[in-house]
């Protein structure tokens, strides 16, 4: 890629990246706490304040922070079954997002969607629980933006496992063919649930597949938020300039299980996973460079806790949906009972 698109990485931006990462981690830890709070002693996936499958994003914060730093709420983002980190980084309001995860009437979808189906019109954010199927709608959002002559872009986030789905390949081809302002972001967290990348993917890097569709592709190897930021800066600028789509694959880290309750017996490196946590690493880098102080980091953490606990309280204290309303919202006209 040409260096002309690069945005200088200032100390303010560095602190902002860490701040976003800390907010995400604080959020995921709080959701995990609430998720397990009433699933003791026996784990029942359907029980409790936060029922159902729960896919948390701890360890993948660099992807969200680095990519979304280049976006505004006018840009679209489609995410996966593991959506919280990119939702937060993209600016989805924490209160209605959390209320949706708690299945409350005040949630983004009035409790109809849940944690894998978060839709926020205010930030053009959505996610889908079906692997790779969030990519095609992102193409359509990008299509609508470019038809209106704007420089808005659509980012489609997916995992490395999804890069073996037909929807992924169809979307790359069509986006490149029509030069749509899309940025494809592949989060390679090494695992498709329990199947390692070596058991699913024929190429070392999905950047190679990008080349196969005639678009720039880059792989970020070390889960570095600054490297993601740089790559995303290039890709977003290229899309805004009408030069078409790009792909970024980030070798990131799934710090926790595929979903909560996953004992991860298939994971040989389990004992050392925490050593690769990107947040302490980046914090220490900034501390060592004098960009961050211990006090400012603690303030960052405290601020995150305040925001997250406010959202949790809001969700917990919100009304549950009226069961008689289960027929509403199928169609735009008629029964909103």
């Amino acid at each position: 890629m040409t260096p002309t698109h690069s945005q200088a990485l200032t100390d303010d931006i560095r602190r902002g990246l860490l701040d976003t990462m800390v907010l995400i981690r604080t959020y995921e830890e709080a959701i995990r706490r609430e998720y397990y709070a009433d699933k003791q002693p026996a784990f029942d996936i359907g029980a409790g304040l936060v029922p159902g499958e729960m896919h948390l994003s701890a360890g993948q914060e660099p992807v969200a922070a680095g990519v979304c730093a280049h976006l505004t709420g006018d840009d679209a983002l489609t995410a996966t079954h593991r959506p919280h980190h990119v939702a937060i980084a993209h600016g989805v309001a924490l209160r209605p997002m959390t209320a949706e995860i708690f299945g409350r009437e005040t949630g983004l979808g009035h409790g109809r969607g849940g944690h894998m189906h978060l839709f926020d019109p205010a930030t053009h954010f959505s996610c889908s629980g079906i692997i790779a199927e969030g990519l095609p709608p992102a193409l359509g959002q990008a299509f609508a933006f470019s038809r209106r002559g704007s420089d808005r872009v659509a980012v489609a986030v997916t995992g490395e496992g999804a890069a073996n789905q037909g929807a992924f390949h169809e979307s790359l081809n069509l986006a490149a063919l029509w030069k749509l302002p899309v940025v494809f972001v592949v989060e390679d967290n090494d695992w498709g649930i329990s199947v390692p990348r070596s058991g699913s993917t024929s190429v070392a890097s999905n950047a190679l597949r990008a080349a196969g569709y005639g678009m720039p592709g880059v792989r970020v190897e070390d889960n570095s938020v600054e490297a993601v930021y740089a790559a995303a800066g290039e890709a977003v600028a290229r899309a805004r300039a009408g030069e078409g789509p790009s792909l970024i694959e980030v070798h990131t880290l799934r710090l926790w299980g595929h979903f909560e309750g996953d004992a991860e017996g298939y994971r040989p490196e389990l004992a050392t996973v925490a050593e690769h946590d990107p947040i302490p690493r980046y914090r220490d880098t900034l501390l060592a460079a004098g960009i961050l102080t211990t006090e400012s980091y603690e303030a960052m953490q405290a601020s995150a806790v305040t925001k997250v606990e406010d959202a949790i309280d809001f969700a917990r204290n919100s009304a549950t949906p009226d069961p008689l309303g289960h027929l509403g919202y199928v169609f735009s006209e008629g029964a909103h009972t």
Partner: protein
Amino acid sequence: MTDASSPRRLALPTEPAAGSRRLSTAKAMQEAIAQRMDRDDSVFVMGEDVGPYGGIFSSTSGLIERFGPDRILDTPISETAFIGLGIGAAVEGMRPIVELMFADFFGVCMDQIYNHMAKIHYESGGNVRVPMVLMTATGGGYSDGAQHSQCLWGTFAHLPGMKVVVPSNPYDAKGLMTSAIETDDPVIFMFHKGIMGLGWMKKNRRSVAAVPEEEYLVPIGKARIARAGTDVTIVTLALSVHHSLDVAEKLEAEGISVEVLDLRSLVPLDREAIVRSVAKTGRLIVVDEDYQSFGLSGEVIAAVAEHDPTLLRSVTRVAVPDVPIPYAHQLEYAVLPTPARIEAAVRDAMAT
């Protein structure tokens, strides 16, 4: 994204007099699309061979000459990608009309259709709308084999969140297409090849008929009495409407009065119209070119039975038995709901 409180944008006449100008069903669909595109920049058409070819079954003939390749877009053979693209564009306020060349091809793209297009409005608690039309060709009768001859409307209608319309004639095709583009909900518009008025396929004589020149709406969810009668009710749709009318005309000479109810929409299903007709005749025949089991024919019968089972003096289904559509003409016509099978069903019903 679309404003969830936005009202319907235009007040158009509903089912005006047909007048005397005659069009084929294909031309009526093209006209509905063109008239909407004239008035609304957000409407565009996308699909395989919808451009210079004009749609394999002529649903888009002449549109690219008029609106150009920026609004009539030929796509790669990537149904998942381009149907999903339509969804995303609709979410952002455009009004895409996307063609899936054959309904039979839904197998390569159903996730976008039933998990995304149909569910986003519900999952978002009504905050995101998907005003999109997915039009697709259905039906057999011309030896296209098991993968290019299916109707499959019962499959789409079974899955919540999409309206399903199935016109049988030019007038309804135009009005239903205009309604489909206008509604803020996703609509599957299923046109039977045998009613399009194509020059290269056996034509039904009613596939060219009077159509008003102005824009108008045929309401989605309202059945139409195609022929009034008192002895037997045939509930049907698409090409089978015409077979049923042919049978009704023939049997009139024998003093058998057949009512033919053209459903026009499967979702919403006009259950009231079905019950009203059966309450009058007591004899129900469902004629359906879709597979018999677990589908439309059972649903229609259930609509009456749940309302009042004593209305049903006799019940018959004339549908495709649960086999793939065969290739050889003789075999295919053994499974299709032919006029001969419909006539036999009426005679049987009259014997009860």
